[in-house]
């Protein structure tokens, strides 16, 4: 039976402890009266029911295995039974779950998992005994509340959650009403509020903050004021009612009392309710993520700090492998001080226990840094561990358009109440067009709907591809952002991807940030330590961002028109196709074809050296290779056999669809004259083995970009070796390292396209 607590005024009970004061021995606790003096407990319950209470709390506040040990289950069972007998059918019985008495890490030494287990046994006992509701009350620490709510939700019973606040507006551990409301609401409680610690007048401002942070019913159970050193409370029943009249007018709908209140207070509350009507309230706080102490809404461009990610970051990679968490935490603090609003946490590396490491990092970063986090992983276990331990509301990065991925990750997003990033790619890769990406976005949103995740909690990443490979990449992304903004969908982009392989990266990144912000970008993943990026952010927030992305980048270069006097080296280096072909034709008149091939190869090598030195960039490398290809074609016209320098099989491993790197390698290798058999992406080891057998290739190139797929690279190498196929294997990719290459039994580690040429030369000649 689903009970509806919405849209009506509900009266709960008052204090139990107050009525039991002095009736149990010092050093013992009131729960034991469930066994030694059940009649007394029943009489208190009855008094509240007679006073009009519709929900009564069981006498089990301190009944948990940490406090009441082996007696716990019996105390709970008796407590629920006594309450149900007293309630008859006039009131619902809520299992009262109080704080554990010990603080959770880092404040105390109790682990989150242990706290969860203790709460679990408590709520299971209560559910078994027949409680109608689980109420978690008087908790001061948000992490403890999270453990309790997660445990309570497993019973399937309605869950109420109330925290204890000080008159300063936060709990003792600094948790704000907004953070609590965001977390409890997204974890799926049925009602939330505040109890204990202060009197009803002091709870009015806290109630107001709770009411504006949730649409769920708000509960207020105030103390009868503050106790003096003899335990006498200073708020009379009439004053109590006065405050509650105000609370109800503001929208509080579940009312009762805490320490110091008696059936007399509840009877007066009952009379008050009869004269009052339920006042609806509406959440005014927009979609947000949070830590216990900080809430981040997305009204202005939100900065996600990207530094805690080993991809392409040597020092971070080393720190993670060495378990140097201090380094990681320092990066977190630095980013916070530079102005990041949210921190991305990615610790995916081959041979690293990602779930374990991410749990440690999330824990340690949030110990010292109050920012909300983005859990960045494709590993389901890592995502769960990160979400579970994070004390707040997080973002999960990411899902995509692939059904398998959606079904894998979205249940976790729902369970832990997180927001989720959806990438506009799927098993077929990344669509070239705006419409293609929008279609995937819709698919993601629909899947989220199936899992009851609101569109407001989804952030679409329309993907940033480098302009080094295609200058149009930027505009497609910008236009997709615009289209999504028009539909009211939030967007995020990894800004620095735009300039991969280009010179002047900072300038390109900043300009891209400005133009995507002008198009309506919601969140930007950047390095906040780069001043020009934060300047761009400030401009964007102040509405001073430029609207057009100028893809023209200052690459020193010449054109065919002024190529007078250029030799073949110059033509290849400057990427001059027409002049290159002309020069080759001239060379073929004066030299033997094989000699011309040597000349062209030497010219390409020179370009490779410049690229390695950083004097030439990826687009230029590609353009040079294209000139060389045309030049080699001219030679082939005269000497067709010269084209065969050997066969190389290349593939992106199973589960991975990143192929830009592989395609560049393919282009460069074939331009050097090798015959490249490209198996494509997401290729399993059997297909690779078949290709090697068919072609007789003596060199295999494998690429993987993700840590989760690097393991498939390992599998593929193993498979090839097991079949005793005679070939050398070179591996590469952003997360691949020389050490990993060695570990998995590869013969070569190819740092980039240039390196692959050197390897091909060594293996094939």
């Amino acid at each position: 039976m689903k009970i509806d607590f919405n849209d009506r005024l509900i009266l709960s009970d008052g204090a139990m402890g107050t009525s039991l004061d002095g009736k149990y021995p010092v050093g013992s606790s009131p729960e034991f009266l469930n066994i030694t003096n059940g009649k007394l407990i029943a009489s208190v319950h009855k008094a509240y029911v007679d006073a009009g209470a519709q929900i009564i709390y069981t006498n089990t506040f301190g009944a948990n295995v940490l406090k009441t040990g082996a007696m716990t289950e019996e105390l709970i069972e008796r407590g629920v039974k006594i309450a149900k007998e007293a309630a008859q059918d006039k009131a619902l019985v809520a299992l009262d779950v109080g704080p554990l008495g010990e603080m959770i890490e880092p404040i105390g030494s109790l682990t989150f998992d242990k706290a969860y287990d203790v709460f679990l046994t408590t709520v299971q006992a209560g559910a078994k005994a027949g409680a109608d509701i689980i109420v978690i009350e008087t908790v001061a620490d948000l992490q403890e509340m999270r453990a309790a709510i997660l445990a309570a939700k497993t019973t399937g019973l309605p869950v109420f959650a109330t925290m204890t606040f000080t008159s300063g507006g936060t709990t003792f551990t600094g948790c704000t009403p907004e953070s609590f409301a965001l977390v409890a609401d997204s974890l799926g409680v049925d009602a939330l509020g505040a109890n204990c610690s202060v009197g009803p007048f002091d709870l009015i401002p806290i109630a107001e903050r709770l009411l504006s942070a949730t649409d769920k019913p708000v509960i207020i159970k105030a103390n009868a004021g503050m106790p003096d050193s003899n335990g006498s409370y200073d708020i009379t029943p009439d004053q109590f009612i006065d405050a509650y009249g105000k609370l109800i007018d503001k929208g509080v709908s579940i009312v009762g009392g805490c320490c110091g209140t008696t059936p007399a207070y509840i009877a007066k509350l009952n009379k008050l309710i009869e004269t009052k009507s339920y006042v609806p309230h509406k959440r005014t706080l927009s979609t947000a993520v949070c830590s216990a102490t900080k809430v981040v809404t997305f009204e202005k461009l939100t900065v996600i700090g990207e530094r805690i990610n080993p991809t392409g970051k040597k020092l971070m990679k080393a720190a993670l492998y060495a378990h140097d968490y201090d380094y990681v935490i320092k990066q977190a603090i630095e980013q916070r001080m530079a102005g990041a609003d949210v921190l991305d946490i990615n610790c995916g590396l081959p041979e690293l226990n990602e779930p374990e490491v991410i749990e440690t990092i999330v824990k340690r970063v949030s110990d010292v840094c109050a920012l909300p986090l983005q859990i960045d992983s494709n590993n389901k276990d890592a995502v769960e561990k990160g979400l579970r331990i994070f004390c707040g509301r997080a973002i999960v990065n990411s899902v995509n358009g692939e059904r398998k991925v959606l079904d894998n990750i979205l249940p976790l997003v729902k369970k832990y109440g997180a927001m989720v990033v959806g990438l506009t790619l799927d098993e077929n890769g990344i669509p070239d067009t705006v419409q293609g990406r929008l279609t995937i976005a819709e698919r993601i949103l629909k899947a989220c709907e199936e899992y009851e995740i609101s569109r407001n909690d989804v952030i679409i990443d329309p993907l940033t591809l480098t302009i080094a490979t295609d200058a149009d990449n930027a505009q497609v992304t910008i236009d997709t952002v615009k289209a999504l903004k028009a539909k009211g969908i939030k967007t995020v982009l990894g800004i620095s991807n735009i300039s991969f392989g280009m010179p002047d990266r900072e300038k390109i990144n900043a300009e891209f940030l400005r133009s995507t912000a002008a198009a309506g970008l919601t969140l930007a993943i950047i390095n906040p330590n780069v001043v020009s990026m934060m300047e761009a952010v400030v401009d964007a927030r102040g509405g001073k961002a430029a609207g057009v992305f100028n893809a023209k980048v200052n690459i020193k270069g010449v054109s065919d028109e002024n190529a007078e006097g250029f030799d073949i080296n110059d033509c290849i280096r400057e990427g001059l196709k027409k002049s290159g072909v002309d020069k080759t034709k001239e060379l073929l008149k004066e030299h033997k074809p094989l000699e011309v091939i040597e000349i062209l190869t030497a010219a390409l090598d020179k370009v490779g050296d410049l690229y390695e030195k950083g004097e030439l960039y990826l687009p230029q490398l590609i353009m040079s290779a294209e000139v060389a290809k045309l030049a080699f074609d001219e030679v082939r016209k005269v000497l067709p056999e010269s084209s065969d320098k050997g066969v190389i099989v290349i593939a992106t491993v199973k589960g991975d669809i990143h192929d830009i790197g592989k395609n560049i390698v393919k282009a460069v290798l074939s331009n050097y004259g090798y015959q490249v058999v490209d198996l494509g992406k997401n290729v399993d080891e059997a297909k690779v083995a078949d290709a090697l057998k068919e072609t007789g290739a003596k060199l295999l190139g494998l690429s993987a970009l993700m840590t989760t797929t690097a393991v498939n690279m390992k599998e593929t190498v193993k498979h090839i070796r097991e079949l005793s196929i005679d070939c050398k294997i070179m591996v590469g990719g952003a997360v691949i390292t020389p050490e990993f290459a060695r570990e998995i039994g590869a013969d070569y580690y190819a740092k980039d396209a240039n390196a692959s040429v050197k390897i091909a030369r060594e293996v094939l000649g």
Partner: protein
Amino acid sequence: MKTTFNIDVDEVKRYAGFKGAHDNKLDLLVERAISEVLSTIKPRAIHKILSVTTDGETVNAGGLVMKSRDLSALFKDKQSTVLLCTTLGYEIDKSISEYSLTEPAYAICLDGAATAAIEAYTDEVQKEIIGDGEISGRFSAGYGDLDISYQSDIIKLLNATKLIGVSVSSSYLLTPMKSVTAFADVPCKSCADCKLKYCIARK
């Protein structure tokens, strides 16, 4: 009722472990630490006045029975005691944690300043409870032969967790870290001038 107190620089240095001469760089750190402590802490206090009896081996304070010869000696010829709990809150613990990563030398000074602060605050709280005059020393669980495990009973008796957010860990550490529980002496003067309205010895 806001309790004001001063943090003694020499006390801070003592707690921070400064022995003997040092350069004024450290003085600057101490100055900064004192200032940061004062602006960060959220001091709170509660107390109960308990009637006390003892047979020389065991003390009964307000119904709480504790085995301790040392405490019994203190309570010899006494009829009441003040049981108090004070804390500076969790915020300063967090700050000290963070600085220990980014500025370890400063973190030591901050910790020293926080320790000096909780002691000074507790002195002031004692003064407010008993009125003017010399305050006595404090005797806490863990002192002498008063077993530290009584810390949980003391917290429970005072209802400290609910009222001021102080808890005890399973290893009997108080959380927040800068917290104190203690029995303090009730110096008996004339009942007419005495602030303790509920003392059982009141004539």
